């Protein structure tokens, strides 16, 4: 249920513009890895290459390898649709489907892969996923109401429920709390702690305290200047990144000297 990710010499492009250069990183299964760095350093861009969502934008492409338990996501004949069904994603702003009920939102991904499902199986999966996202008790009486009627934090947890309903190998989170209030943020962070037991979690965050709170390992990305490609500067145990960084830039960033 959880796989490791190894990235070898990955370059990420928007058209001819090199956005992220030469990333090498190994992400352990059943761990939380945080990507931190200043705005525009390419951490979100890099995250989106891990489930081939990057190439959705016109002209966007990558060079290099992303191995999911040894299998190259960018290998010949690999269907991005299959990749995305195994690597779930949670976005910056909560995006439940507004026309679907809470229940249908949870089942949306499952219905893609497996059209026929008995009602009792579906009910069980809805309950399990919503429980897994710490949302069940809040919504169990209104599963047929639209997902857009929930609060921002609840919507984000609904999106997480939707992502885990398909039993992915990896869950990517792109600043999942940046649109949420502190209480909802806390709920999501608690949830990330629990998700770690079953999934490989990769989270991009602007909030260094958040990275320190939730992650096992932290990767610091930086950019030399506007128009220059973003690079992975340092990747280590979270404790070491914040207490004893090896690079000057990392130290400057985590101690609040810039960014």
């Amino acid at each position, binding site marked *: 249920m959880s796989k490791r990710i190894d990235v070898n010499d990955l370059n990420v492009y928007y058209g001819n513009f090199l956005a992220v250069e030469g990333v090498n990183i190994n992400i352990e299964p059943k761990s939380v890895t945080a990507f931190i760095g200043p705005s525009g350093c390419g951490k979100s861009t890099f995250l989106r290459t891990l*489930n081939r*969502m990057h190439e*959705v934008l*016109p002209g966007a492409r990558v060079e290099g390898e992303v191995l999911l338990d040894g299998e190259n996501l960018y290998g010949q004949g690999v269907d991005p*649709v*299959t*990749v*995305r*069904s*195994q690597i*779930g*994603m949670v*976005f910056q*702003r909560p*995006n*439940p*489907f*507004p*026309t*679907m*009920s809470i229940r249908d939102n949870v089942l*949306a*991904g499952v219905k*893609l*892969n497996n059209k026929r499902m008995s009602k009792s199986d579906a009910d069980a999966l809805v309950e399990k996923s919503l429980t897994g996202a710490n949302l069940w008790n809040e919504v169990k009486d209104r599963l047929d*109401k*639209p997902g*857009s*009627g929930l609060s921002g934090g609840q919507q984000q947890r609904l*999106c997480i429920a*939707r*992502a885990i309903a*398909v039993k992915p190998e990896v869950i990517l989170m792109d600043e999942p709390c940046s649109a949420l209030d502190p209480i909802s943020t806390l709920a999501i962070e608690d949830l990330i702690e629990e998700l770690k037991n079953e999934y490989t979690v990769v989270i991009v965050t602007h909030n260094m305290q958040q990275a320190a709170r939730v992650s096992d390992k932290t990767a610091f990305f930086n950019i030399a200047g506007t128009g220059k490609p973003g690079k992975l500067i340092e990747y280590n145990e979270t404790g070491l990144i914040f207490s004893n960084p090896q690079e000057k830039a990392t130290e400057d960033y985590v101690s609040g000297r810039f960014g």
Partner: protein
Amino acid sequence: MSNTLTEGGAKGRAGDKVFSGLTLFAGCLILVVLFAVAAFLILQAMPTFAADPAKITGGEGFWVYIWPIVIGTLIAAVIALLIATPVGIGVALFISHFAPRKMAQGLGYVVDLLAAIPSVVYGAWGIAVLAPALVPVYGWLAENAGWIPIFQGPASQTGKTMLTAGIVLSVMILPIITSLSREIFLQTPKLHEEAALAMGATRWEMIRMAVFPFARAGVISAVMLGLGRALGETMAVALVLSSGALIPSLIKSGNQTIAAEIALNFPEAFGLRLSELIAAGLILFVITLAVNMIARWIISRHKEFSGAN
């Protein structure tokens, strides 16, 4: 010393008042025009409803006279919608989500050009090109599918039939449906499209999950606008259709629509006949109004799930 708080506001408020006055005027103008048209139709149509049934065209009263052409109007509009809706939505989707950017732009212009062609030109094209071209098709249909009432033979030898008129109408309403649908499809939030894609949806699944639900209300409005035009379109039907009594077959001469009936007979009409035609116009007005209200109702029924909240 003057009070800066009271002084500064007055100027801004004057502009506000002028603007709100203008918008109020514009809003009222619509109502006045609508009321004036309705009043004209009702007043002028009155004599028809009051008249001796024997004096009405056909000799059996207004309703016997009007219902075949009401049905004819609806048939023409339904044929047009049945053809134009799937094609229009398909073209719009192709432009918004499938075509390469450059091609999409070109195609968009071409579709908009279709809307710029005057309806009399469509009518002329219908008689000169489409109708003759369809004659063999109608012959084949009459021979092989003649047991279906709508394809009952013998087929028209000129091709000037209801089906031809419906096809011409569908080409005329295609640009309305296409360009409005395209605009709506393009407005689908990227957020929802990406949500679907990130779950492992294919392009088509993404369109069904994110684009169609979002665009639903807009597409219904687009189709209804197209229907409005199909119902009221005069020139093309008047030119293309060789009209007659109401018959089920769509490939024989016959049938008539309200708009064409009015256009063909109005120049020579006077007295009670004039009033009859205006009454027919009133009926068309009521039908169009009903269509629009039904569309509104369909849209509002799903308000809770529209994403507006």
